[in-house]
C-alpha cells in the first residue's frame, strides 16, 4: 500500500509567447517560489527536487536541471530529471509523488517547464535521423490523420473541434494565467481561421508558450498541518505502448484505456462522468477532447462528440463534467509543463482554489497527460478528502 500524499502548494507563471524578462532559471524559480509561498514553506523545508521537461532540444540545453540546481535550492539534496515526451509534466508529478508515497521523503518540490521561445520546437521534433523516415511533420501533422480517422468512425459533425476550441478559450478567459485571452471568441472566428493540418485549423491548435508549473507534495502528517486545504492523491497511473505495432488503435489507444482503468480503480471510480467533478485533460488539438472522452470512459465509443456538443464539458454552459476549466493546453502550452499544469489545475479544483474557473464544490478531479504518438500516458486523481 502506498503512503498517503497530498499537494500542499501550487505555483505557476503567467503563460505567454516569450518571457524575455527572465532566464530559464528565473522562470523555474518563479514557479517554485510561488509554490513555496502557497504552501507557506521555505527552501529548507524541501527534501528533494524532481524536475521535468520535454526534449532538451526545445531550449538547446543538455540536461538543464544540472544548471538549474542553484535556482531550485537543490544544493546538498537529491534531484531527479524526468523525460517522457509530452506526458512529462504528468509523469514528473507522479515520480515526485512516488518520493513521498514510498515513504522515502516527507516533502518534495516538483517543477516542470518549457521556455519554447529559446528555440524552435518544430525543428527540434523534426530533425532527420539516419535510420528512419524523415517526417518533418511536427505534432499537428502527426495527429491530423488520426483525428480524420476519428471523424470517419464516429460520423461526428465537422464543427465539434470548433466547439472545443471556443469552449476552452472561454474557460481560459476566466484564468488570468492562461496564455491566450480570447473572451469574445466565436465559432465563426475559429472556422474562418486558416487550415494548418487539415482538419486542424489555426485556432484549433495549442499556442507555443513559455512557462513553468511547480507543486509541493507532502506526506499525510505534514499535509494535515498545511495552512491551505491539501489535494489528496487518490490514484496514480502510467502506461506506455510502442509508436507503431500491428493492430494498434491510434484513435483510441489501449495504453490510455488501461491507464484510466488503473487510476479509477485506485480512486474507487466506477463511472468517471458521474464520480468525478471535473477533469483537466491534455487536449493540444481540439478534436482530442471527444477522442479522450471516449478513451477515458466518459462516453461510449463513438459518442464523445455528443457530450462536447451538448455542453457537458463546458463551465459556461453549466455542463455536468467540465473539462479543462483552466483553458487547457489549447489556451497555454509550455510543452514540458503542460502535463503538470493539468495535474496542478485538478488539484486547485479540489482545494477550492481555482478562482474564476472553480467548479463549485469540486471534490474529485482527474489530471491527465499524454505524449509521443499518443502512446505515453500519465494520470492522477486528486480529492478534497483522503478517501
Amino acid at each position, binding site marked *: 500500500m502506498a503512503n498517503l500524499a497530498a499537494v500542499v502548494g501550487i505555483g505557476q507563471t503567467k503563460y505567454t509567447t516569450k518571457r524575455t524578462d527572465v*532566464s530559464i532559471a528565473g522562470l523555474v524559480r518563479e514557479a517554485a517560489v510561488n509554490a513555496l509561498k502557497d504552501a507557506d514553506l521555505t527552501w529548507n523545508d524541501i527534501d528533494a527536487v524532481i524536475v521535468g521537461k520535454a*526534449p532538451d532540444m526545445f531550449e538547446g540545453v543538455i*540536461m538543464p536541471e*544540472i544548471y538549474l540546481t542553484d535556482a531550485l535550492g537543490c544544493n546538498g539534496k537529491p534531484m*531527479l530529471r524526468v523525460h517522457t515526451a509530452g506526458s512529462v509534466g504528468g509523469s514528473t508529478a507522479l*515520480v515526485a509523488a512516488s518520493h513521498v508515497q*514510498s515513504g*522515502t521523503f516527507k516533502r518534495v518540490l516538483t517543477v516542470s517547464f518549457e521556455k519554447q521561445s529559446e528555440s524552435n520546437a518544430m525543428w527540434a521534433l523534426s530533425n532527420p535521423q539516419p535510420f528512419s523516415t524523415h517526417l518533418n511533420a511536427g505534432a499537428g501533422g502527426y495527429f491530423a490523420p488520426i483525428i480524420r480517422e476519428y471523424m470517419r468512425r464516429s460520423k461526428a459533425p465537422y464543427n465539434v473541434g470548433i466547439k472545443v476550441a471556443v469552449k476552452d478559450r472561454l474557460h481560459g478567459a476566466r484564468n488570468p494565467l492562461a496564455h491566450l485571452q480570447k473572451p469574445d471568441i466565436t465559432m465563426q472566428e475559429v472556422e474562418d481561421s486558416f487550415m494548418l493540418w487539415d482538419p486542424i485549423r489555426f485556432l484549433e491548435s495549442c499556442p507555443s508558450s513559455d512557462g513553468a508549473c511547480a507543486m509541493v507534495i507532502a506526506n499525510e502528517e505534514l499535509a494535515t498541518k498545511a495552512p491551505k486545504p491539501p489535494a489528496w492523491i487518490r490514484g496514480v497511473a502510467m502506461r506506455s*505502448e510502442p509508436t507503431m505495432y500491428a493492430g494498434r488503435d491510434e484513435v483510441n489507444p489501449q495504453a490510455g484505456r488501461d491507464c484510466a482503468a488503473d487510476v479509477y480503480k485506485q480512486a474507487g471510480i466506477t463511472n468517471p462522468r458521474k464520480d468525478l467533478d471535473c477533469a483537466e485533460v491534455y487536449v493540444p488539438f481540439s478534436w482530442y477532447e471527444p477522442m479522450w472522452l471516449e478513451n477515458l470512459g466518459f462516453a461510449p465509443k463513438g459518442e464523445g462528440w455528443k457530450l462536447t456538443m451538448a455542453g457537458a464539458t463546458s463551465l459556461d454552459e453549466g455542463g455536468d463534467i467540465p473539462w479543462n476549466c483552466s483553458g487547457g493546453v489549447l489556451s497555454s502550452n509550455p510543452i514540458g509543463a503542460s502535463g503538470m499544469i493539468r495535474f496542478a489545475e485538478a488539484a486547485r479544483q479540489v482545494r477550492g482554489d481555482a478562482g474564476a474557473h472553480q467548479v463549485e464544490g469540486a471534490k474529485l478531479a482527474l489530471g491527465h497527460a499524454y505524449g509521443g504518438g499518443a502512446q505515453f500516458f500519465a494520470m492522477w486523481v486528486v480529492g478534497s478528502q483522503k478517501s
Partner: protein
Amino acid sequence: MKQIAIVAYQQTDSVSDAGAVNEVELIMPVLARTFKQAGLKSAQDVGFTCSGSCDYLQGAAFAFVAGVDALGAVPPIKESHVEMDAAWALYESMLKIRMGHADSALIYGFGKSSPGELPIVLSQQLDPYYLAPLWVDSISLAAMQARIMLDRGLITERDMAEVVSRSRRNAMNNPHAQLSGDISPEDVLAEETYLSPLRKADCCPVSDGASAMIIATVEQAKAWGLPYVIISGIDHCIETHNLGMRDLTDSVSTRIAANRAGMNAGKVDVAELYAPFSHQEIILTRALGLDEGTSVNPSGGVLAGNLMMASGLSRIGEVFNRIVKGEARRGIAHATSGPCLQHNLVTVLEQGENA
C-alpha cells in the same frame, strides 16, 4: 521498508564505434540476455520499466521513444524515463517498488556517443548564458580540476598514472572492456600530455553500448528462485553548478550520499566508482574514506570503457556480479553526472541468502 534486490545484470561490450546499429538494435540483445538470466520473457513479466538516455547523444528529440520498441510493450506497460544515467532510473524504480506499485522492475541505459564529439556535446550541458557559449568541453574542465589538485600537492602525476595502470590491468579480466592491457605507470607517464595535465590515458574513452538490470522485492526474487544481491541503501545528492563555488578537490555530495545510503554500517569489500578521469577516482576514494581493504574498480572502471547513460548502472551491475560470484560480500557503487562530479549517487549492495 521493503527489501529490494538485484537478480540480473547484463551489458554490451564497450566499443568505440557500434557502426550502423540504431539504439533499438543496441538495446535488444542486452535486454534479451537480461530476461534470459532472470528466466523472464519480456518487459511484460516485470511490474515497472525505467530507462536512462540522453537525446543529445543521438542528436534527436525523444531518444527513448524508439527504446520502447525493444521492450515488447504490447499490451501497454508501466514505463518511465529519466534524462540521466540509468542509475537514477534504478532509483526511480526503487521508489515505485517501495510504494507497492510494482514487485519488480527492468532498468536499462544506453548511449551511442560515437556519432558526435562527446566532450564538445557535453559543453552544452553547462549554464546556457554564461558557460555554454564558451564551449568549454568536459575534458578541459576535468583538466582544470586535475591542475588544482596537482598545484595544491594533493596528488602527483604518478598517482594518476597508477590509477590508469591499475584500470588497464584490471580490465584484462573484463570481457566487455574497451581498453585493457599490462601497462605500467611508467608507460602512462611516457605518454605526451593531451590536455595538460591530462594524458589521453587519464581520460575515459568514448564508447557505445547499453546495460540492463532487473530488480525485485526479496520475496519475488526468492519466488523466482534466483540468486540475489540486496540493495541495502541508495541515495544521491547534487551540488552547485557554479564550479567556482565548489571545492573541486573534494566530492562533498558523494560523501553525503554515501552516509545517507549507510555505506559505513559495514566493511566495503568492493567499490565501483564512476570516475571518467583518473584524478577523479582519487577524489572519490578519498571522499568516501576507502582504504586498502576495499578493491576499487576491479572491472577497470569507466577508464576501460564509458557507456554514457549506462555507466552508472553498470557500476552497480559490476558490484552485483562480484557478490554473486562470491568475490565480495558487501560493496558500493557510485554514479556521477554533470561537470567535475556535480551530481553523485551511491548504492550499497549486500549479499542475499542465495547469492
